[in-house]
């Protein structure tokens, strides 16, 4: 088996969760790599949408920003941003939205707004962007981020976007009809919400990861599923395609700024 790093397995595991019929609202970074890896391997017909308005895009290299020109060049169509948020996101057409977080709690609630008090923040973060409505309008939310005690916290400082709230039926109580966070993929494990409590539960640990590694990087008491499996490692093909994509990306971006 080929050697790989945790970051690669995180991307591969996220890609595997996507199918040909998915319409994904993609974010920059890990989600973009995962979505394009899925497109270049088992899901060639997946539809990738970036909030800049590009629909059905198929970039040769990964974009650096959400609005790179190549996203538009390879898209089926590019629409104005108000239309993107009205017809495509709010219209309920997105099957999977990807989100990351500065802070995440065990119910999939996300903070990317401030550390500390909103009105006198210790750290002013960029804010939510599309996240508040991505979280409520997409049929499902996948979260990808690396585990760390700084970010996997017991209590987030601000509800940038709503996951499962206090857990249980909290989403439905607020009138939200979509499923919310259904998958959390990190550099150490794959988590899914408990069907009842909605608390994220470890379904599989990546090869070599121990429960001690988990406890060191998560700020809450971790719940494990009944049968925690080992995450299948990346296949040779997955690694080759991912590394070629990243190599093309690096070469293209060096050329652009040369």
């Amino acid at each position, binding site marked *: 088996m080929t050697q790989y790093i945790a970051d690669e397995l995180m991307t591969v595991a996220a890609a595997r969760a996507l199918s040909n019929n998915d319409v994904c609202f993609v974010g920059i970074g890990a989600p973009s790599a995962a979505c394009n890896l899925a497109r270049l391997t088992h899901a060639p017909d997946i539809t990738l949408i970036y909030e800049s308005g590009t629909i059905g895009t198929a970039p040769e290299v990964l974009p650096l920003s959400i609005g790179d020109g190549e996203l538009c060049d390879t898209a089926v169509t590019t629409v104005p941003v108000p239309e993107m948020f009205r017809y495509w996101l709010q219209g309920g057409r997105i099957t999977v939205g990807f989100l990351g977080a500065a802070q995440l709690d065990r119910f999939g609630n996300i903070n990317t707004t401030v550390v500390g008090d909103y009105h006198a923040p210790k750290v002013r973060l*960029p804010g939510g962007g599309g996240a508040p409505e991505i979280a409520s309008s997409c049929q499902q939310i996948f979260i990808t981020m690396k585990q760390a005690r700084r970010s996997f916290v017991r209590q987030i400082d601000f509800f940038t976007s709503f996951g499962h709230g206090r857990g249980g039926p909290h989403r439905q109580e607020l009138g939200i009809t979509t499923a919310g966070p259904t998958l959390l993929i990190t550099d150490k494990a794959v988590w899914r919400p408990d069907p009842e409590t909605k608390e994220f539960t470890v379904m599989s640990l990546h090869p070599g990861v121990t429960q001690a590694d988990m406890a060191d990087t998560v700020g809450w008491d971790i719940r494990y599923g009944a049968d925690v499996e080992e995450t299948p490692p990346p296949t040779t093909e997955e690694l080759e395609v991912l590394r070629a994509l990243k190599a093309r990306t690096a070469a293209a971006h060096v050329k652009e*700024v040369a």
Partner: protein
Amino acid sequence: MAKFHALQDAVRTIIRPGMSVAFEGFTHLIPHAAAHEVIRQGIDDLTLIRMTPDLVYDQMIGMGLARKAVFSYAGNPGVGLLRRLRDAVENDWPRALEIEEHSHAAMANAYEAGAAGLPMAVFRGYLGAGLKDVNPNIRSVTCPFTGEALSAVPAIRPDVSVIHAQKADRRGNVLIEGIVGVQKEAVLAAKSAIVTVEEVVEQLDAHTNVCVLPYWTIDALVHVPGGAHPSYAHGYYPRDNAAYLNWDKIAADRDTFGKWMHENVLNADASAFASRVSQLKGET
């Protein structure tokens, strides 16, 4: 007919201290040259409106020209935080900055409502989200047919909107292609509009259904080749990603920032933009 002007004149006659101004552009076609002219003229006390304030607003805020920012994502796209904006919000440096924060959906809808002449935008948003607890401009209306509570935000109606576009024809009709963002809405929502363009042509020869702003919707047109740098102009030059990465270092320190602004903005003029993109265009 829209009038072609020098950039200094367009900015001086249309943007005045205390106004609300939207410099729009969603990664693509950000009107850097026009924002730099505002900085050179020291037009201050501005309310800066934009979905994605990035380098230009970091610069204007760092130079103390803004009293308020209205935004939905204040980051350096693909790089990280906006350090001058952070310094203003966290430390009131160089002056306190009031903020009105929304989601992208809210701002996109609010521009759309402004263009449509409505007082508010109605959408399904902010469900369970914290912003509605800290922003009194996020309210609610009830659907008289279903009883559903929907979110409402005020329409955005800037005193001035400033955008950069690919082409204008001699009459002043403007063509925007590629990632079109909210620029059409920003122009139609504003009381006045300034448009800088890469190129002035005899005829737009545009497809009938693409984004064209008729000349009579624009108050001043300015020909500024390269005027979006380090953002990009689809069909003209790519995004200068190195400049975005560098900005993170420049903005990290107040003195470095000040020095950079003097060298590259205060002691420069709009003609510098053409040379900044010449290498990106492959002209060497």
